[in-house]
């Protein structure tokens, strides 16, 4: 048995070595726990990191892993640490959603994805920082302070799943879960130089994910390679009877074979996305990445999707409308910290608790969402936004029906911006999600993979979108690219 450094192994390799008995899950856990211990403060990746508590929980899982190995039950994630965004329920752990309002909320059950991870032998490894209630694109809306970018600590990690993206980028965990409502997995993955996957709406159960925009939310993955992404996706995907929006469609096997060529694959670039606001550096690298795809056998063409111009207003109407309703339960009565101010009547108690507990951006979105659902405004905003959403969906579907396999774009118009640069300009912040919103609005899967570094040395991501339930196409294609550029080792920040 050769001694190996767990930090040098991919998640897939770790699981194999642990399952084969070449590596002890216990040692993997301790090595990663020590690394988190050393780095989490400066990166602010984790919320209330407690090494001993995490390792205590891990110990229980170690017994399960041993028993499963003995019974020869396959464990695709045997001994693999995974960080969990702090809006996903892990039974018995606090789940703050990055909010002061939920600072003491303890989860009473495991999310379906967490159950699946535990059953697959994974080690639940800390709660990661996020924009409050997943509302933000930089992780600066966290009431626990912003997560910083492992590549440059003056820059943001992206958001809302910034903690998960930075944790995987800095190798504080080989894998992490995030949630993606408008780009919250893909944009921070792009900013931190890791692979981020937002599956098809309905592919992964939302049961146990604190809802933000219910018709858009999807749990997604962070990993350093496409192979590891496929591994994690394979574990969490599948029908869940507890989620009525979960699709009862079989998940094809996700273990990727040796890469094949992309011959015959047609990739479309959206004309409208390549205009104003796109950073030149990002454009250059994106064009180079397309060239690599061509070298692998794909053809690239340009399509026009004019309705996507309305992405931002449509998204912010639908997401905030749903959020204003989803967050109603955090009222200080049953859920959410109750204001301690004396002498309040019921109505005042609601107002005061919510005023104290929610941050600025969350309040802004609740107010916006409340407004668009109000009597007399519903048709002008919410109903109209849904009609345009349907038109976009059909427009995108039309592209795939023409025989296009993948739609490609940069993941974000820029690389990670500086901390504080956009915190006072909501619209500028919202624009950083301009390329990612469409996949949520259309419910289709999308993946961000690192394709280069900009002049400032920050990662650039490329987004691929596929038709609904086309995750396999996404993963296989992205893997071909990854192999063509000789892997993702170059996207490892020096820490």
């Amino acid at each position, binding site marked *: 048995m050769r001694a190996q450094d767990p930090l040098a192994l991919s998640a897939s390799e770790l699981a194999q070595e642990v399952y084969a008995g070449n590596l002890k899950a216990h040692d993997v856990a301790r090595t990663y726990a020590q690394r988190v211990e050393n780095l989490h403060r400066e990166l602010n990746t984790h919320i209330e990191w407690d090494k001993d508590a995490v390792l205590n929980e891990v110990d229980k899982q170690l017994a399960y892993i041993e028993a499963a190995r003995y019974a020869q039950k396959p464990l695709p994630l045997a001994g693999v640490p995974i960080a969990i965004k702090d*809006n*996903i*329920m892990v039974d018995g752990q606090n*789940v703050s*959603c990055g909010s002061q309002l*939920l600072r003491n*909320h303890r*989860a*009473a*059950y495991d*999310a379906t994805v967490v159950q699946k991870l535990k059953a697959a032998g994974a080690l639940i490894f800390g709660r990661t920082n996020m924009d409050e209630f997943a509302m933000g694109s930089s992780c600066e809306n966290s009431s626990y302070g912003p997560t910083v970018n492992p590549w440059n600590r003056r820059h943001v990690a992206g958001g809302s799943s910034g903690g998960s993206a930075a944790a995987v980028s800095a190798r504080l965990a080989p894998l992490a879960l995030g949630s993606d409502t408008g780009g919250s997995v893909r944009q921070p993955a792009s900013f931190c130089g890791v692979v981020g996957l937002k599956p098809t709406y309905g592919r992964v159960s*939302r*049961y*146990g*994910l*604190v*809802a933000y925009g*219910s*018709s858009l939310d999807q749990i997604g993955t962070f990993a350093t390679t496409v192979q590891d992404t496929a591994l994690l996706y394979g574990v969490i995907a599948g029908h869940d*009877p*507890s*989620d*009525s*929006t979960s699709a009862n469609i079989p998940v094809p096997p996700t273990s990727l074979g040796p890469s094949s060529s992309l011959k015959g694959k047609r990739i479309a670039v959206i004309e409208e996305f390549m205009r104003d606001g796109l950073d030149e550096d990002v454009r250059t690298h994106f064009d180079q990445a397309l060239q690599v795809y061509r070298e692998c056998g794909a053809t690239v063409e340009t399509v026009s999707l004019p309705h996507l111009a309305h992405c931002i207003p449509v998204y912010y109407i639908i997401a905030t*409308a*749903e959020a*204003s*309703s989803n*967050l*109603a*339960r*955090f*009222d200080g*009565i*049953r*859920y959410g910290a109750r204001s301690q101010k004396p002498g309040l009547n*019921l*109505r005042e108690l*609601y107002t005061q608790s919510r005023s104290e507990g929610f941050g600025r951006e969350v309040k802004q979105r609740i107010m916006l969402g*409340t407004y668009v*659902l*109000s*009597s007399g405004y*519903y048709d002008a905003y*919410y109903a109209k936004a849904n009609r345009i959403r349907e038109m976009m969906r059909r427009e995108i579907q039309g592209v795939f029906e023409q025989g296009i396999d993948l739609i490609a774009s940069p993941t974000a118009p820029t690389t990670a911006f500086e901390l504080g640069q956009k915190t006072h300009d909501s619209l500028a912040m919202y624009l950083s999600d301009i390329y990612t919103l469409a996949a949520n609005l259309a419910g289709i899967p999308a993946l961000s993979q690192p394709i280069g570094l900009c002049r400032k040395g920050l990662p650039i991501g490329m987004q691929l979108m596929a038709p609904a339930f086309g995750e396999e196409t996404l993963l296989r294609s992205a893997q071909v690219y990854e192999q063509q550029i000789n892997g993702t080792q170059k996207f490892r920040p020096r820490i």
Partner: protein
Amino acid sequence: MSSKSTELKSSDHGFNSILARFEPVIGLEVHCQLKTESKLFCGCKTTFGALANQNTCPVCLGLPGVLPVLNHEAVEYAIRMALAVGATIRERSVFARKQYFYPDLPKGYQLTQYDLPYCQHGTLLLDNGRRIRIERIHMEEDAGKNIHGDNASYVDLNRAGIPLLEIVSAPDLSGPAEAAEYLKKLRAIARYLDISDGNLEEGSFRCDANVSLRPVGSKTLGTRTEIKNLNSFRNVEKAITYEILRQADVLESGDKVKQVTLQFDAAVGRTIVMRSKEDSPDYRYFPDPDLGVLHISEARIQSVRANTRELPEQKVQRFQEAFSIPEADARQLTEEKELAAFFEDVVKKVAGSVAPKIVANWMLSEYLREFNARQWQFEKPFVSSEHFAKLLKLLGEGTISGKIAKTVFEEMAATGADPDGIIAAKGLVQINDSAAIKAVVDQVIAAHPEQVAQYLSGKQKVYGFLVGQVMKISAGRFNPNLLNECLKEALHGKS
């Protein structure tokens, strides 16, 4: 509305004189609790009387991250009701979120069908031949219950998520009596369909009434008021009557009726304003993104139709035809499903020896009198159908007289004993022995020569006296027909 005067001016003129000038227009919204095994969106039990918050789970507690899953038993019950009132079932219907803050509503919204209910356009026939239109029926979840203690308020969520049908009539009801009849009939249907226990006291069947007046002959509707949460048939009649009188007062004094929501104070018999139209909350309804569209296929409707149950109106018809009983009796016997079942059970048990009409008479007079006086329950009737049938059989076969049968039944009602036992113990068996009867007849004739002479001189009335004398001696046990024969024979033998 003026709350200063308790006495209404118009009540002096009487209700009928008001009806000569104004036409009341009444519509009811009935909430019918479905007696499904589990709640509408989770697997929790629906049993009444459990300890506070015992019948709860993460879903009906509204814990962050949970999702609803529709209970298809409830949908089947809902289809039964729709079919029973001849309504149209929509293939596509949608649950919406009705949003408001209240402690008994843990999610901050109630899931209810709003602009796309599953059912529309039904009717219900009143005894006077009027068809009351049912505009719509929709499914929704119940809220919990606030309990106010000395220093604090508590919330019991056992009821939260229990399925309800809301049945909304058109404004077709013309007075308090019709409203009460409509409600009774609707309740009977729900109970016949086995979808609700229709218990008004426990709140499983409750109603709101919309009331307006218009001058007789006018076609336009007046301003309506809504009286909330009427929980007995009596209160429905009383509240509507009061409201008609109150509105008549307002209109006759030249004022306008204000559109308000009222509460009925049964203790003082008045309606009290809860809120005016201006304070009516904006519920910001929108389609629930977690449930998606509910599809009810024609095949599903057919399968429910195939298992259809007999409705009260059909039973009334059948009873009249099969048992040759008058309509009024048939209506009375079918008012409660259990009464009708008991009756049919007894009819079956005495078939061949007692006519159904006799059973009906006995049920409606003797049996129901004791039943009501002693507050029996049909789930466990004190006098069982076996014993009651046995009694009627003894009567039909001539073992006991009608008079004795009543005595025996009184004893059965008091003690629960078997009629045979009572008859044996008290020596009540009918005597059919002509010789024995003749002996007593002769004895009576000998003892009352004066009366015999009066009879023979044409005073028919005295005959009854003589019969009474014979019966007195026999303790009522002589077969009345034989007694008649013997007495007449003896008297006429004298002439």
